[in-house]
């Protein structure tokens, strides 16, 4: 399985991940090798097998539901305590909308 540098760039864009030139080249060969290994799964006929969507669930379907009651939450201060930039109760981010 070959992964091209263009594919690596495309996937990095999807992941919002900036890669250096060197990382891009390295991932071409590494990802290609790992994905080729993953192709061993194609030896198995799974047409009649259900995907494992739930690991384990032994209770009734509604067991995890709870009453909708108010309770103490973090609040803006707690939630923003780790923000690199915050102000007026909000996260500050670079300008999103162009005028």
């Amino acid at each position, binding site marked *: 399985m070959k992964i091209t540098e263009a594919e*690596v760039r495309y*996937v*990095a864009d*999807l*992941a*919002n*991940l*900036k*890669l*250096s030139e060197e*990382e891009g080249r390295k*991932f071409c060969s*590494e*990802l290609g*090798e*790992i*994905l080729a*290994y*993953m*192709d*061993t*799964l*194609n*030896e*198995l006929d*799974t047409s009649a*097998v*259900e*995907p*494992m*969507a739930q*690991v*384990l669930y*032994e*209770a009734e379907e509604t*067991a*995890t539901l*709870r009453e909708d009651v108010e309770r103490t939450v*973090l609040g803006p201060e*707690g*939630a923003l*305590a*780790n*923000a*690199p*930039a915050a102000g007026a109760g909000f*996260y500050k*981010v*670079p*300008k*999103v909308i162009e005028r």
Partner: protein
Amino acid sequence: MDVASLTIDRIREGLLRREFSAVELATEALRFAQSENAKTNAYLHFCPERALGAARRVDEKLARSQAPGPLAAVPVAVKDVICTRGVRTTCGSRLLAHYVPPYDATAVIRLEQAGGVVLGKTNCDEFAMGSSTENSAFGPVRNPLAPDRVPGGSSGGSAAAVAQGTAVVALGSDTGGSIRQPASFCGVVGVTPTYGRVSRYGLVAFASSLDHIGPLARNVPDAARLLRVTAGRDEMDSTSAFAPVADYPALLDGEVRGTRVGLPREYFEGLASETGELVHRGVEVLARLGCELRQISLPHTRYAIACYYIICTAEASSNLARYDGARYTIRSSESETLIGMYRNTRGEGFGAECKRRIMLGTYVLSSGYYDAYYLKAQKVRTLIARDFSAAFREVDAIVTPVSPFPAFRLGEKLDDPLEMYLSDIYTITGDLAGIPCMSVPCGRTASGLPVGMQILANHFDEAGMLRLAHAFERAGGVNAL
């Protein structure tokens, strides 16, 4: 006071006989752990105020003749992927170097309610991704038994602290073997409970359908005690199990004669010779204890690595999307635009292994590949889980090696990610099936490196698994032969 060899029983005895107070023990345990830490780098940071506060509460209870709790004054290390309110939680990542959680993980709340004293947070592979703790942004951990070697990973700091005696017990997390493999490399006990047995509220998510919290300890009873207090349904984690929690410590001494132990042939092929020999000797000890050995087959084992690394990277790529530069302490200085902030923060912040897994996970989930990789892997996961269900109709427990080899040298496997992934073969199947599994020490190689024996049991049969491990440990392990 020799803090390095304390057990939970010994601490209880010392407290009740007034040989030491909880505060005295905590003070000495902190001093010892801090002075020894340079040898291993097991701890990333300590929390003395929190530890002494917890110890004071134990002393107050004792002074009022109240029950101080099953973990009273026990020094505990907590892997740094588990949130501690007001105490930095870095996940071994540059991205979270300054992150201070505003809340505690449920497992931490419960162990402190039981009287446990959290000394500090332990080093690990970045976001728990790795098998050697070399992927930490804060330097690798050295194996306390062989300083030129790795402690295993990703819970390498927790395993090293317990082995070194700088904690009596520790919490780790396990997604593909991250508790059991370091336990085996460091010669301690490590338990991965049933999926959902211990709440993951406050565990920083890596792969949500595979993540577990579990205990590491120097003996089986201490692991059982930490598991007992942390296990159980938690409203804050909808995936936590409702099944009642058994009194694991009280059930350790039951009979193991007649226990049907399965030996899957797929797990004993191609083993490094000394590891294989030691695990075979371990199995012989189980036979002498009256266990009934049966050869079994888990036919889909050879597909487990591919299946695991598709599912875990897919889930990781989604879980790690939150580290975007807006919310978690670190933002790239080059953040002129929103997308630029995302891309640059993540590019500068994540280490090589995290990037590799984000890339793989994004690839297997991307349009056109989802069915071929992710959906396929979820179906193969069903087949692997069915292998175990079928096996547990014939046997009560399954015994295998933990790792194909003992602790390797620092740097030895860093250049070959696929080879590093392949070394997880014996541990990832338990996580994929969601069953409880553990590593118990099984002797040492000629050069003194510990080897672990893995015991796997059916869903929620932690009690049976721990009982077998305890019988093995009490018999003297492989030295019983």
